[in-house]
């Protein structure tokens, strides 16, 4: 019906249908409210237009009416608020077993790294029906990852990770836009999301330039950069053993605890002295400027892969990781 004049983009993710339902509700509500107000104004304008001998009737106001038209809109607003909140919480909470794709944004392109090792530029291939979590960072300014067909968007910041997730439902090729103004060629920082049937996707995976899986690349880097000389699995290491650390709580030297998530691993590589694990000295060299964003992602993926609990059985509240053999406190 609207093919030649669409009112919304293709609906190609689980989120899209939820967002559209709320959108259509809001469009109807706004239409009703504005038509009601415009009709009243037009009726009053016609009915009470100036006539000879008819004087305006002075009316002071009505507290009842004022309260009615304050409280009723507020109630409707709260419905919209809660409905929106439910969608937002769903949209911002990635499932635990989602496939992870690392995204690096830079002026003016998107670089994507699959867990399996595939690397793409300005294109992302995903299968229908799989939960995909994007772990994103920027090399320079703020960008924003926007896929209209999925109704999702998230700013991509330099110096930290932001995440986004989706589950595609319709095969097809969809726009990927950068929606945060990022300089000269902002409008050329566009790409495609290619959603494929699972079989086709497997064929695509097999056909692409074979690259080592991301975690394996990370493992190689881990050796090359000398990380493994200190981060060892025996207790002789000068740095904490990284096995099983990811996703757990870590006790810090200053008594705080942090969750060892992507951002913490990232920060610990770039600025190790920021949050030192209890029982260790701040002796690790700074890697800021020595590793690229892509290498960083590989390292994070490697740390993540180290003795991670099996997917699905990851505990809801991670147990605290005690520092190995605490020395004199």
């Amino acid at each position, binding site marked *: 019906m609207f093919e030649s004049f669409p009112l919304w983009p293709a609906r190609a993710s689980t989120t899209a249908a939820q967002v559209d339902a709320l959108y259509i509700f809001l469009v109807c509500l706004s239409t009703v409210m504005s038509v009601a107000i415009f009709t009243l104004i037009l009726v009053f304008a016609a009915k009470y237009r100036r006539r000879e001998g008819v004087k305006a009737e*002075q009316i002071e106001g009505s507290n009842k009416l004022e309260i009615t038209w304050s409280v009723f809109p507020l109630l409707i607003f709260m419905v919209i608020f809660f409905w929106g909140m439910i969608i937002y919480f769903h949209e911002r909470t990635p499932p635990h077993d989602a496939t992870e794709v690392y995204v690096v944004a830079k002026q003016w392109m998107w670089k994507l790294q699959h867990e399996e090792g595939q690397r793409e530029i300005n294109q992302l291939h995903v299968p229908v029906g799989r939960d995909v979590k994007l772990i994103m960072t920027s090399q320079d300014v703020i960008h924003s990852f926007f896929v209209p067909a999925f109704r999702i968007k998230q700013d991509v910041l330099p110096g930290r990770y932001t995440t986004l997730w989706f589950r595609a439902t319709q095969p097809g090729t969809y726009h990927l836009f950068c929606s945060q103004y990022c300089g000269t060629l902002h409008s050329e920082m*566009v790409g495609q999301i290619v959603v494929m049937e699972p079989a086709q996707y497997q064929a695509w995976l097999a056909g692409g330039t074979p690259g080592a899986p991301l975690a394996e690349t990370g493992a190689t880097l881990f050796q090359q950069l000398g990380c493994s000389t200190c981060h060892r699995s025996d207790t002789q290491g000068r740095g904490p053993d990284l096995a099983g650390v990811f996703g757990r709580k870590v006790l810090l030297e200053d008594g705080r605890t942090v969750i060892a998530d992507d951002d913490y691993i990232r920060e610990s590589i770039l600025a190790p002295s920021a949050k030192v694990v209890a029982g260790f000295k701040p002796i690790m060299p700074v890697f800021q400027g020595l590793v690229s964003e892509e290498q960083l992602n590989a390292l994070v993926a490697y740390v993540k892969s180290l003795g991670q609990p099996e997917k699905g059985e990851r505990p809801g509240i991670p147990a605290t990781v005690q520092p190995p053999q605490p020395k004199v406190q």
Partner: protein
Amino acid sequence: MATAAITQERQNYLNQSYGIKSWLLTTDHKRIALLYLASITFFFFIGGFFALLIRLELLTPAGDLVLADTYNKLFSMHGQVMIFFFLIPSIPAVLGNFLVPLMIGAKDLAFPRINLLSWYLYIIAGLMYIHCMLTGGVDTGWTFYTPFSTAFSNTKVVEAGLAIFVAGFSSILTGLNFVVTIHRMRAPGMTWTRLPLFIWAHYATSIIQLLGTPVLAVTLVLVVLERAFHLGIFDPSRGGDPLLFQHLFWFYSHPAVYIMILPAMGVVTEIVPCFSRKRVFGYSFVAMSSIAIAVLGFLVWAHHMFVAGISLYSAMVFSMLSYLVAVPSAIKVFNWTATMYKGSITFSTPMLYAFGFIGLFTMGGLTGLFLACLGIDPHVHDTYFVIAHFHYIMVGGAVMGYLGGMHFWWPKISGRLYPEGWGRLAALIVFVGFNLTFFPQFILGYLGMPRRYWDYSHSPEFQVLNVLSTAGASVLGVGYVLPMVYFLWSMRYGKLAPDNPWNAAGLEWQTTSPPPTFNFEETPVVNFEAYDYEHIPEPEVAVER
């Protein structure tokens, strides 16, 4: 001098003295209002010219009219000129300056010299900004987002930032002047509950100007420091936090929207009762809703940041607070509508603008509900949906209010009548042109067209709606040029205006048109309520044909 011999023509603020010096050194709030009128009109047409080029570029999907960098400068400077050099000073510095003392029965503002200083600061800021534009311009968007503005842009960010910094002080001083004037200079009997609602709106606006603008000033200084001296404040590669900038920026720039719209609401609240011949429905609710908007307006800034990387729970809180601020705006719309009930309505130009305002502001407000909604905003954020929404508020709302007010008080300001037929025609053209320009952008936005795109050749499906929008912009342009032409024409050829051509309530209509330099022959004593239309006869000659 005030005691000069009485000439044939009545003495007024315009013929009180002559010569360029008598204008540039004036401390008369009415003359300063006219100085502002000339200056902001100049900037309005510069900003409008940029808008025209933007719309022409978007007529075709390819980036083929200007270069990408030029386009980026065009939308950045369109936004900065329109917001900081036109919209923020528009109603307060022109109509507010002219009317606040008149409406409360005062001789002038509390600090006439500071008022002149405000204008000079504005002019200094304007010259700095013109210098910035002529020497290369700025391409950060009007929002100066970091680290792009502090570490990556190759344009005149420092110059633009400092110009806006200075313009901010002009705005702060105007707000300060209004607050003190409204507190201290009301005529005998002019109690708070007898104040025209235009004054309440300006009072609320002034509070925002006083409390919000310094935060913008500090933020711009930090941007300049980081850019010029490489301090690490916002740039993560120097240990800064880019989101901190967004928090600081929107802490001012969201309330700034209310600096633009509250005075326009004040104008509409004067026009609707006059042309309905009725007192305002629910005076105290309309007054308090202005204050509520000013207060709540400070608590919603992070709704600009739902996809910027803030936590789930802060997004939740800011979404809810944003819905609260929508309530007082809704109250105003309902009260204006109710004011017309059982009135005796005529359809002069100011009333047409007021109708336009209510309609467009309602649509702008309702689409604001979409953007405050956590479920919808992530999709439409930074798309043309947002562009359409805030143009409905700032152009459909604030500019319609400004034009309505200019027509309503033009006889008082100039002592001449504008041609009514042309006035109505222009109001109609503006309304049609506006909707044609901006309504398609709502659909464009939901379809996913991001804002600030110079080239959309990868998504040519957006073209039809862009063509409609550009067509509308050309109609809108005609609608804006017309009033300027006939206002200028009327200054020489318009019919002499009577003191109170609309038989309107309000002290400003009790003095002569144009008013004498010190506004009133003798200080008025107020023993009646605002909008006392019961005791004011309807105009003898109906303005209605």
